């Protein structure tokens, strides 16, 4: 019984049981959330939800069309800010950063990545909202865009670093300049990965609520242009969930389901792109 062999076997069994239980726990939480969302949100989900404005207090029905469009506009703005800066920053870090500046930039992006989203919200509030004098789509988009930057920088850098050095040398050996080699060989080789990283960054900020509370603020109506407060899915969920009306809760669940589906679809698309590239690179 006390032989090392039985001890080893016992340890094996115990460890297997513990890790197995934890995995099961994690997976069942995910499925529980998904199932609950489907059950609660599913029957509030109808065509009106996608096409109508919220119903006035006291009336039932209505939809989240303004929040859906608002989220889309916020994400477009966030992409316009986050993607170019994040992408170019990543290219700089991976391909052109010497040791010292690259270290500083990398450290800063990691810090930026760790900034709580509510703090990012205060920042956008102070810089944009206070300056402009009112809440706006613009302010919300900037807050989300700034949040995207560090994620996009680091994922771009990582995928560029994964490109074999022989490709860079191959291009340089043919008389390409450094930037030409990066632009025509290295970036194309890493592109599916880079796109994946950017999609994941977008999915990540799509669900952010805190920075929107005091930048985009929320709106019960349409928000034309970029200069007015706007509704968005996360903040509408928040407001509907804490309201004292049963049918509002239902709609919050429905909105949660829509948001989660969106994020899941983006995630799956991203992984699909990455898998295809792996296959292509292998031939």
């Amino acid at each position: 019984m006390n032989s090392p062999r039985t001890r080893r076997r016992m340890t094996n069994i115990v460890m297997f049981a513990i890790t197995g239980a934890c995995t099961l726990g994690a997976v069942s939480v995910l499925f529980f959330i998904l199932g609950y969302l489907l059950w609660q949100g599913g029957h509030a989900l109808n065509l009106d939800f996608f096409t109508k404005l919220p119903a006035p207090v006291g009336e039932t029905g209505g939809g989240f069309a303004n929040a859906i469009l608002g989220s889309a506009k916020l994400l477009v703005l966030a992409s316009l800010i986050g993607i170019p800066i994040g992408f170019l920053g990543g290219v700089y870090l991976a391909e052109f950063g010497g040791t010292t500046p690259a270290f500083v930039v990398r450290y800063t992006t990691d810090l930026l990545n760790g900034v709580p989203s509510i703090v990012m919200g205060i920042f956008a509030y102070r810089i944009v909202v206070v300056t402009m004098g009112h809440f706006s789509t613009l302010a919300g988009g900037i807050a989300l865009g700034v949040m995207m930057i560090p994620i996009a920088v680091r994922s771009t850098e990582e995928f560029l670093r994964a490109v074999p050095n022989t490709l860079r040398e191959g291009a340089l050996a043919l008389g390409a300049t450094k930037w030409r080699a990066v632009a025509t060989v290295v970036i194309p080789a890493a592109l599916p990965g880079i796109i994946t990283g950017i999609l994941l960054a977008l999915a990540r900020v799509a669900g952010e609520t805190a920075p929107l509370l005091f930048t985009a603020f929320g709106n019960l109506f349409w928000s034309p242009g970029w200069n007015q407060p706007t509704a968005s899915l996360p903040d509408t969920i928040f407001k509907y969930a804490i309201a004292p009306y049963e049918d509002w809760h239902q709609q919050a669940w429905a909105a949660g389901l829509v948001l989660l589906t969106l994020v899941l679809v983006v995630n799956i698309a991203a992984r699909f792109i990455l898998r295809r590239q792996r296959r292509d690179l292998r031939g």
Partner: protein
Amino acid sequence: MKINVGRVNFYYGKQQALYDVSTRIRQQAVTALIGPSGCGKSTFLRSLNRMNDLIPGARLEGKVELDGEDIYSDEMDVIHLRRRVGMIFQRSNPFPMSVYDNVAYGVRVNKLARKRLEVDEIVEKTLRAAALWEEVKDRLHRSAMSLSGGQQQRLCIARALAVEPEVLLMDEPASALDPISTAKIEELIYNLKQSYTIVVVTHNMQQAARISDETGFFLNGRLVEFNETKRIFTAPAVRETEDYITGRFG
């Protein structure tokens, strides 16, 4: 003499990798470099087209002349140098693009041809020169990744030939290939020497004996012996060379 190397010392940071290497590389001939791994063959080869410039902390002392011109002088245009001195790597490294675009890459980068027809012509000519045309002519626009390992390496040779280099540096070009692909590469090298100056690193003694006109033997960062291949393999002057080629060490 195409290349003249005079008393080259090479350092990776503090670590010295080449000691006082001097030699001459003959035009339109194949020069083989042999020696145990880690003895500095790749380092030497890469200093002939300044590929080592890319390694942080790397430093070269001494003189490397191409057609009498010091390639490490300030006036030397490195981009132009690399066009004149092409390189084939140990592991084939086709770019993730089509076969055609791989061959056309250097042509476009160096603006050697602008019209589509001219590029087409160069692509065909160099693929023929690399003995690959018949195998890929029907799939020029498919990904280069779909070629076999041996075909990929010949594609890399074609790609290097397309910019009309004068010298070809090859770092163990066949070491990752099967015997049949290796034989094709060897035949190719043999044919190419009519038009190019070729320097090839190999760890395969028979290969060096078969394809080269001159052979240099490196040991611990020194060029121990350099002579006609015939002499190196029949009557080496230095004891270490003999030990190495007869397989007594290395």
